[in-house]
């Protein structure tokens, strides 16, 4: 319904405006609806301004900045409508060490209320896991679960 979409949008936007500066240690961001007769047809624009930079098209952001902006938005949607579980496949691939740390910190926080499955190659992300599932192909072409370590 129009009303529910509008309400959800506003709530997510409110969170996004807090989560972005938190993840970027500053700066500001907001969502906006594109011009449309019907709010159910409108698109969602993202305005994102990292600390110290001028507001420009979100496409000019760097690979890592786009990932962190996307994470800020996902976290915002989660806070408005928590999902019981989250499956994240190598979302830290473009992040430098500092940003991996910030991503891990916010995941640790959200994991109090939601179950997370994180696929990663990153040593720092591996450290925040409560349990590690090791997958291998000892026999070529055949996947096997070989190790479950508790931290």
């Amino acid at each position, binding site marked *: 319904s129009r009303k529910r*979409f509008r309400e*959800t949008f506003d709530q997510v936007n409110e969170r996004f405006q807090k989560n972005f500066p938190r993840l970027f240690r500053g700066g500001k961001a907001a969502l906006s609806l594109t011009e449309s007769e019907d709010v159910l047809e409108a698109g969602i624009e993202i305005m994102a301004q990292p600390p110290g930079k001028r507001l420009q098209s979100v496409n000019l952001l760097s690979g890592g900045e786009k990932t962190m902006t996307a994470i800020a938005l996902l976290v915002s949607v989660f806070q408005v409508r928590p999902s019981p579980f*989250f499956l*994240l496949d190598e979302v830290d691939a473009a992040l430098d060490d500092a940003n991996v740390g910030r991503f891990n910190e916010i995941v640790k926080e959200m*994991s109090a209320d939601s179950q997370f499955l*994180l696929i990663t190659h990153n040593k720092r992300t591996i450290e925040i896991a409560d349990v590690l599932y090791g997958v*291998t*192909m000892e026999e070529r072409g055949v996947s096997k679960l070989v190790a479950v370590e508790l931290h």
Partner: protein
Amino acid sequence: MRIKSLQITGFKSFVDKTAFSFDTGISGVVGPNGCGKSNVVDAIRWAMGEQSPRRLRGKGMDDVIFAGSDARAPVGLAEVMLTFDNADGIAPPEFAAYSEIQVARRLYRTGESEYLLNKTPCRLRDILDFFRDTGIGTKGYTIVEQGRIAEIVSAKAEERRTLIEEAA
């Protein structure tokens, strides 16, 4: 409604029955390139009713059935069983009595599909309704596929609607 356990047999590179039992908190999945980590996510998506082979990196849906290896022949059946813990009671009302809810999906190489909710045969429609009623969709933000996190940002404005629509 967190995931309690996952059992994969004959699905993609998991030809042998493989069981994952998941806890609350953060589970990390690690291993070398090509060992099967993303296939685990594909298995969960598929059990949740994913209908587009392309979203599972395949051409046809039969691409998810173990196609053989050097030493092994292809198999004729892919099966995934996903068991949820209903302690938080967010499952649809008709499942309120269950503390555990199991979703199973099978695909035979002959083309036949089977779907089960708590071991009772049902249709794909029932699986999709089940997840829609709990608010967990395969299109929303619950699952972020490999290489696609930044897409939320570089997507067109209209494509981003789904994110809010699924939460609304």
